[in-house]
């Protein structure tokens, strides 16, 4: 593949992925409002379009047309940088996620993954430190929130961003540790390599996902830490509206506020992607042999979408169910329960892997 073809293929993949991601983000908001509405015996959005399906579009137009206030005493540059940083970092981590296997189109073979390429032998490969890069990019999202709160020069913003930073760094430790168990079994940091390690099945029925190979404790730790990382209920202390108005984005309005909003939902999608790649086998799933080949080619994408949808629905479901933690409970839970549990999981997994070898 020449350099030009490589660049064009990469650009096409980026355009499609980014378009799908932004659409998913917009419709997750719709889904959340609809599902939480039904859980509370309301209809949710129902006026704009059938079932309120055009609501995200209407929201977008409204965000564009609203007056964008920049209070005179903020740190202008940082105030502008913060939402951009949050959004860019939230979007970029999707570039590392393997969405599907190798596809062949117009004489070009390429994996459905932005950073994936096919080597001379026809084998797919991607960055061998993919997971580290994803963790690094998502960690940079903390800066968006911390800078937003500091530059706003408002008490609520500052307290919200301090809380958010402390919470996110606390749970990041457990999040990283929970993934070590999977790495012990897969022996690779490459995300597509991790998916390949989970491809086979027991008796042709039960998939050999790491969740079923003994990593269920790690899965729960990861999910809890991920909820805290994305500032979602029950860990939405940074924007606890009863005490902090809106937390770190109190002073933001119009499009800049929308960017924080999109960043939060894009982060949810990323976390769901990583969870399904690490624990639920990514795009792997049963093949249905009686379907025509053209339909079968799309099955991996269907399985991946189904897993992402499951996680997004879980987010909404928990939002409709649980109340909010208190801040001391949150910190105690993260440091005194989740962290030792994650450490114990690493040691136990290492012991069993060494035992079998």
């Amino acid at each position, binding site marked *: 593949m020449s350099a030009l073809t490589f660049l064009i293929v990469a650009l096409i993949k980026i355009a499609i992925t980014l378009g799908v991601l932004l659409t998913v983000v917009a419709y997750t908001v719709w889904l959340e409002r609809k599902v939480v509405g039904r859980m509370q015996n309301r209809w949710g959005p129902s006026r704009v379009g059938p079932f309120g399906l055009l609501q995200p579009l209407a929201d977008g137009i409204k965000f564009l047309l609203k007056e*964008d*206030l920049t209070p005179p005493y903020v740190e202008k540059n940082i105030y502008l940088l913060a939402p951009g940083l949050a959004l860019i970092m939230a979007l970029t981590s999707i570039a590392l996620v393997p969405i599907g296997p190798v596809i062949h189109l117009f004489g070009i073979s390429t994996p459905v993954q932005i950073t994936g390429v096919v080597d001379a032998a026809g084998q797919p490969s991607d960055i061998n430190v993919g997971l580290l890069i994803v963790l690094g990019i998502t960690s940079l999202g903390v800066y968006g929130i911390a800078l937003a709160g500091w530059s706003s020069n408002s008490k609520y913003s500052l307290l919200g961003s301090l809380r958010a930073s402390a919470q996110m760094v606390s749970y990041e430790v457990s999040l990283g540790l929970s993934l070590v168990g999977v790495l012990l079994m897969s022996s690779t940091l490459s995300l597509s390599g991790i998916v390949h390690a989970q491809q086979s099945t027991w008796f042709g029925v039960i998939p050999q996902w790491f969740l079923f190979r003994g990593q269920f404790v790690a899965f729960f730790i990861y999910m809890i830490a991920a909820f805290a990382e994305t500032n979602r209920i029950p860990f939405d202390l940074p924007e606890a509206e009863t005490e902090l108005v809106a937390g770190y984005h109190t002073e933001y309005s119009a499009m800049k506020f929308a960017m924080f909003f999109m960043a939060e939902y894009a982060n949810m999608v990323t976390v769901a992607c990583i969870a399904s790649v690490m624990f639920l086998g990514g795009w792997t799933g049963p093949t249905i042999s009686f379907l025509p080949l053209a339909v079968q080619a799309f099955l991996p994408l269907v399985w991946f979408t189904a897993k992402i949808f499951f996680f997004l629905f879980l987010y909404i479901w928990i939002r409709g169910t649980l109340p909010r933690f208190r801040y001391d409970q949150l910190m105690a839970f993260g440091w005194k329960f989740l962290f030792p549990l994650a450490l114990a999981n690493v040691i136990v997994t290492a012991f069993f892997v060494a035992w079998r070898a």
Partner: protein
Amino acid sequence: MWGFRALRARAGHTAGVPYAMPQNYIPIFVFLLVAFAVAAGTLLVATIVRPRNPEKVKGMAYECGIEVQEGSRKRYTVRFYIVAILFVIFDVETIFLFPWAVQFKQLGAYGFVEMIVFLGILVLGYLWVWKKGALEWI
């Protein structure tokens, strides 16, 4: 010592594990540029179409309706600093675990014992921090 030898012997080939070429990294930077363009583009469009009539009262910091009393950049509780320090210590430990976990099957029992010692020291520090009350939030 033999841990190193095992690593070097394995460095030549890793069966089934895909190798990365530098060109894999290019799409990430392209993606960064595109994401930046999306963010900047929406802000630019918003600047063109949105109304603009600033007022003194609109520009005040939000304090639930009352006038702003004093600036916000003041001292805050030292707990946040302690959490930041704890994060640096324990997250660096976590990052140390990553390469160990990837090479674990090659390192074998030696790697296991080595890491138990390492984690033992970490857990000692953790218990000390707990006993000192750095994990309490009051």
